[in-house]
């Protein structure tokens, strides 16, 4: 077991420590200029732009989740039916998950290209003039969320589908005997039984969304006018575009703390959930 532990600790814990010490210095490129204590953190909390970044992050994560969960559920419900070509449709609908963030950003940028893209062309029936949805500060965030949804809804669909197919048929037959309509059957029996899978998906995805950089960096780069500049992207650019290592380290520590907070809450929720399930099972037995 030792090599695995050494690897994980060496690459995950030690840099965490280095990052923390670095965040306490004023830096010029890679050089530490002088020890400044928590000044970098104070600067972060008094910077209005940082708060905008945080708000953008939350909008991005919450907006994506609000679409991705219902869409994933719908896809799972569709794939749970029996019909011809189900295997092919499943492969097609899950496909976007294997497309990387870099490629997703580029594929959509080209699809939405204001001059040559088919989507703006189709929409030009309704809207006059060149339609630059990614370059417009009113629509950029929405479009970014849609791109994000495109590449992550299959994850929700897979988890939900697996949970749906694990429901014992007797339960559904009992509901049929009691005269439940298909909708009632879905809302009152299936949905509660797959709630745990949805919870897991929500947790995993919200952490993914809050820390996302690549998709945004490649498609909008935080623009236009900073409307899509989320906190994680800011950290990345602060470090590797402007080389403010001290500031970036401090912001990275804040992201790290946020993640920790989220993770702890989530672990509590999952544990509580599991205990409740165990309790219910114990009672049934």
């Amino acid at each position, binding site marked *: *077991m030792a090599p695995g532990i050494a690897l994980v600790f060496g690459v995950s814990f030690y840099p965490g420590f280095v990052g923390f010490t670095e965040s306490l210095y004023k830096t010029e490129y890679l050089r530490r200029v002088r020890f400044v204590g928590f000044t970098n953190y104070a600067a972060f909390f008094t910077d209005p732009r940082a708060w905008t970044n945080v708000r953008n992050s939350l909008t991005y994560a919450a907006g994506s989740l609000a679409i991705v969960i219902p869409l994933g559920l719908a896809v799972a419900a569709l794939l749970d039916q029996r019909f011809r070509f189900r295997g092919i449709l499943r492969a097609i609908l899950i*496909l976007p998950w294997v497309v990387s963030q870099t490629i997703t950003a580029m594929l959509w940028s080209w699809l939405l290209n204001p001059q040559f893209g088919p989507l703006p062309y189709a929409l030009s029936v309704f809207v006059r003039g060149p339609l630059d949805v990614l370059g417009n500060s009113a629509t950029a965030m929405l479009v970014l969320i849609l791109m994000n949804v495109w590449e992550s809804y299959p994850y929700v669909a897979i988890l939900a589908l697996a949970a749906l197919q694990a429901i014992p048929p007797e339960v559904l037959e009992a509901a049929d005997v009691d005269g439940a309509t298909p909708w009632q059957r879905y809302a009152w029996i299936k949905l509660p039984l797959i709630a745990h899978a949805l919870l897991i998906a929500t947790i995993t995805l919200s952490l993914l969304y809050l820390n996302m950089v*690549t998709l945004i960096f490649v498609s909008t780069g935080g623009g236009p006018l900073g409307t899509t500049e989320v906190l994680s992207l800011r950290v990345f650019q602060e470090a590797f575009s402007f080389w403010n*290592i001290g500031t970036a*380290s401090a912001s990275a520590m804040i992201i790290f703390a946020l993640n920790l907070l989220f993770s702890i809450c989530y672990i509590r929720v999952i544990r509580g959930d599991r205990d409740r399930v165990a309790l219910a099972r114990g009672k049934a037995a």
Partner: protein
Amino acid sequence: MKHVGFGVCAILLGAFALAPILWALSTSLKPYDEAVAFPPAWIPKHVSLKNFADVLFRSGMPRYCLNTGFVALGTIALTLVAAAHAGYAAARHDFYGKQALLFIILATTMIPGIAILVPLYLVSVKVHLHNTFTALILVFAAWQTPAVVWMLKGFFETVPPELEEAALLDGCTPLRAFYRITLPLAQPGMAAAAILVFMFVWSDFLLPFTLVTGDQKRLVSVGLYNFITAYGIEWPRLCAALILALLPVLLLFLCVQRRFIAGLMAGAGKA
């Protein structure tokens, strides 16, 4: 009526999933003037492979793909070696602090890449591993090991311990019994893990962007990104490059869909 609604839903969703990929495929097959023609057309009038030839023979893409393949293989090897031993120890042996250790290992997957990127960069410069494949392999493997440990632990638990006990009676050392008996039986798990690791390495952008500089050691995601900045954007060529970069993961996905989905449910994240 119900069937019609059902079919419409299926077609709309399928179109949503495929449109971006098909549009890039269409563009990649068009000659330049047709690709930038207005109004845009989905079906190319003249099919030309010139864009693909340009990417394959007159760009850095083949090198980037080879680089990525090399790093992916190194990462897979290191991850599997580290994770198989750890997963086996966790599945078979009880030792003091096991649960805590397993939990801490899993907890490292909650450390987001972006929060640790800057320090990783600083450390890699400090230990003179900056701009080497070694650095990439080490970090990728460390990021993937926790999930794979948990995955393989599950697989090892399904192998009956009686098999190993029989081997021990026949005079095998415990380690030998593990290599000869248990490991071969856990092959499906190792394969699933290898696929997930490959997909991760092939897709990741941030790490190769920060730890590696220069054209010689560039990986495929960064190579694609440089298409944008280097030449102004020449979309038909970029589309051909995108399709080529997608090809390995798409083929892999289609071949091993079931295993891929199983691995996904065992708790692996996305790049």
